[in-house]
């Protein structure tokens, strides 16, 4: 029954958008409660659908759109958990925004755009075909542009919005190319589609991956990864994320936790069978993710802007999720569950951290952590909820972040034993840094003494309420949901006709070798038996092989390493930044001349390299050359042609003198000539 109204999950926030943008000025608080209610209704509907289809059904509705395309809704376990998370977190963020944006003259515009942003993300999540997903994907990009540049009179905000839009666009072009390539490949297969099936629908794609040539698969996978890298802020397209802090803090919370950056990870998870089948597809994902995780974490260490610390932390955590998905090359579909679990947990504690930062900024009116300090005395609720968020981010035992990150590191270890240890090492180092920077932030904001004169007051309850709710989830979600979550998401691809052993054989994964080895064993055993029996044996042998492969569990030091990492990192941060146990002064350990410190403060000279050198030299040079070609050649011949026509016409038009007498003379002459000709013709006898 709820599933019949699934379209309302997107339609209601869109309605809120329309109402807010046209009538928001006449409503109290810019009509923000409309957006809150619409999003909350989406949560209720999603929950209703959960109760209906859990644990083994999916919702699939579709109707024809045009040509070979359709619009449709596909709610499988993967989409469902995302729907629940997005609606839940967005409801809380919008509620918080009621307090945070109170009194802003653009309030109605904010809530309208926020509603559209939420709707776009929800539409992206439960789209049943790639084209529809791409449309909502672009809509998410547009909304992020509008919201990052919300204070558009501020030049830095306008620049940040443009940067975000253009950077993600680089990825979007690759994504679109991948879609076209995939469509061409599927179209050339001449698939006999049943009524109601369309080429770009996910079930159809899943079912026909095995027929696409592997080299094409790799190209498609890399294109899709390009899109995900742009949206999820992975290296080298991560540059827009820290700048996106220019928007209101609630926008940052939305972008970082629920609505935007998770789209990239979701895309890779959604197309996981394709990545799995593509040779080197998941390797690329793992490499990008692991590198980004460490790279961004190091930059998070030195940022002074509280929101920038969180932004780098988001980039880093997204790197964890990507690396987790990449580790699927070794562990199979479990990776999707692990990675999405981290995504959900991350969205809880990252939304919490951003909203806490917003609460602090609301009181202190600065983003700079050097001007804070000792705020904990005045903002008890904010302090403790942010403590929970930081503990969760750092991976303190029994917090959500601990379970999810631990699991990613474990499967990265398995990836290491089978393929390559580099991602594992990168992730472990990044986890240490995560613990350090999150507590560097917490200690330097809330403990110690005030380093500047700020207004000392706690935020109103409309802001603190969402903090408390999120804190509960940031603490307890992992503990409660862990087991059933993995099981539920593991069933995701069982709803489609997709055979992962076949895919693994195409992708050349170690699992495939194990499976084929099992097959050989099975055929040896089943020689005497019938063919059916042998396939049965094959299945059991294969299961046994997988179990055998999983059985040599990680050594005990790998198991407890994450705990040591978290505690050690927090302790280390405390030694530097907590006044009670402070042993070292950061400025004395590393002086201003320290090359590492300088590189980190300059953020690896990214701005100098990417903007100063790459953009202004190479891209601008190419643009100049293109411009010249455009003016001289493309426009050139056209201009020459039109100039020639104009000149010719200038001569010809002299014929039209405008003097009536000339016309009459010509007329009379013409008649005379006609008469003479006709008379002569008559004489000769032609007529």
């Amino acid at each position: 029954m709820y599933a019949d109204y699934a379209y309302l999950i997107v339609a209601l926030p869109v309605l809120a958008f329309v109402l807010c943008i046209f009538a928001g000025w006449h409503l109290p608080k810019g009509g923000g409660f409309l957006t809150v209610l619409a999003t909350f209704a989406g949560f209720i509907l999603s929950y209703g659908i959960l109760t209906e289809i859990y644990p083994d059904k999916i919702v699939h509705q579709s109707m024809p759109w045009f040509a070979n395309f359709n619009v449709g809704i596909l709610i499988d376990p993967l989409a469902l958990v995302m729907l629940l998370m997005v609606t839940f977190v967005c409801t809380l963020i919008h509620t918080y925004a009621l307090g945070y944006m109170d009194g802003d003259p653009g309030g109605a515009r904010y809530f309208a755009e926020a509603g559209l942003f939420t709707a776009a993300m929800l539409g992206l999540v439960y789209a049943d075909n790639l084209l529809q997903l791409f449309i909502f994907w672009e809509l998410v990009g547009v909304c992020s542009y509008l919201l990052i540049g919300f204070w558009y009179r501020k030049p830095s905000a306008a620049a940040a919005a443009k940067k975000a839009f253009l950077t993600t666009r680089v990825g979007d072009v690759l994504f679109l190319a991948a879609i076209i390539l995939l469509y061409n490949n599927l179209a050339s297969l001449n698939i006999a589609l049943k009524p109601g099936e369309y080429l770009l629908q996910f079930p159809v794609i899943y079912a026909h991956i095995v027929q696409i040539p592997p080299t094409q698969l790799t190209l498609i996978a890399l294109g899709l990864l390009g899109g995900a890298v742009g949206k999820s802020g992975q290296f080298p397209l991560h540059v827009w994320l820290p700048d996106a802090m220019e928007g209101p803090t609630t926008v940052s919370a939305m972008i970082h936790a629920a609505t935007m950056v998770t789209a990239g990870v979701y895309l890779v998870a959604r197309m996981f069978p394709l990545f799995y089948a593509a040779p080197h597809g998941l390797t690329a994902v793992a490499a990008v993710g692991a590198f980004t995780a460490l790279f961004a974490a190091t930059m998070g260490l030195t940022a002074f802007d509280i929101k920038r610390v969180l932004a780098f932390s988001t980039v880093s955590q997204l790197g964890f999720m990507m690396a987790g998905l990449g580790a699927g090359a070794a562990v199979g579909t479990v990776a999707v569950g692990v990675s999405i679990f981290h995504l959900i947990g991350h969205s809880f504690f990252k939304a919490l951290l951003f909203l806490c930062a917003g609460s602090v900024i609301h009181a202190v009116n600065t983003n700079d952590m050097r001007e804070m300090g000792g705020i904990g005395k005045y903002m008890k609720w904010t302090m403790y909820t942010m403590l929970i968020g930081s503990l969760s981010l750092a991976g303190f035992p029994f917090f959500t972040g601990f379970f999810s990150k631990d699991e990613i590191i474990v499967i990265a270890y398995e990836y290491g034993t089978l393929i390559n240890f580099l991602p594992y090492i990168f992730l472990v180092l990044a986890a240490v840094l995560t613990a350090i920077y999150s507590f560097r932030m917490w200690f330097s904001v809330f403990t110690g003494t005030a380093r500047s004169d700020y207004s000392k007051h706690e935020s109103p309850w409309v802001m603190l309420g969402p903090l408390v709710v999120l804190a509960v989830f940031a603490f307890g979600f992992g503990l409660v949901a862990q087991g059933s979550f993995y099981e539920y998401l593991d069933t995701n691809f069982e709803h489609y006709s997709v055979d992962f052993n076949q895919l693994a054989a195409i992708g050349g994964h170690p699992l495939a070798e194990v499976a084929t080895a099992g097959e050989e064993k099975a055929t040896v055993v089943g020689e005497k038996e019938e063919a059916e029996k042998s396939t049965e044996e094959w299945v059991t042998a294969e299961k046994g092989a997988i179990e055998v492969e999983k059985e040599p569990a990680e050594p005990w030091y790998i198991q407890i390493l994450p705990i040591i990492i978290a505690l050690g990192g927090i302790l280390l941060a405390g030694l530097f930044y907590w006044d009670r146990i402070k042993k070292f002064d950061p400025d004395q350990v590393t002086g201003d001349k320290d090359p590492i410190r300088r590189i980190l403060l300059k953020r690896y000279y990214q701005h100098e390299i990417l903007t100063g050198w790459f953009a202004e030299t190479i891209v601008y040079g190419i643009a100049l050359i293109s411009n010249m070609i455009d003016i001289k050649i493309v426009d050139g011949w056209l201009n020459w042609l039109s100039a020639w026509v104009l000149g010719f016409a200038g001569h010809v038009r002299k014929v039209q003198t405008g003097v009536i007498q000339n016309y009459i003379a010509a007329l009379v002459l013409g008649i005379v000539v006609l008469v003479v000709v006709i008379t002569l013709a008559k004489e000769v006898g032609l007529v």
Partner: protein
Amino acid sequence: MIPLELNILLASTMFTIGLYGLVTQRNGVKLMMCIELLLNSANINLVAFSAYQPNVNGQVFALFSIALAAAEAAVGFAILIALYRLYGTIDLDNINAMRW
């Protein structure tokens, strides 16, 4: 009765004079007069043929034609007066604002 040929000769003479005037003259009023000559040469033809082939249709046409000529002359002279007010001349060679 005057032979038909003489009537036609008169008409064609008037037509030729009118045409010659149209081609050579530049003065607006003279042009109007030449146009009248052309019209009336046609009228003479109409009346002459109607007389030789006992049928009044031709004479009715001639009457219509005269009425039309009057209207045409009224419009034409109105235009000439307007031109005169604008340019201070009715020499058509000087009126070339819309020429290339």
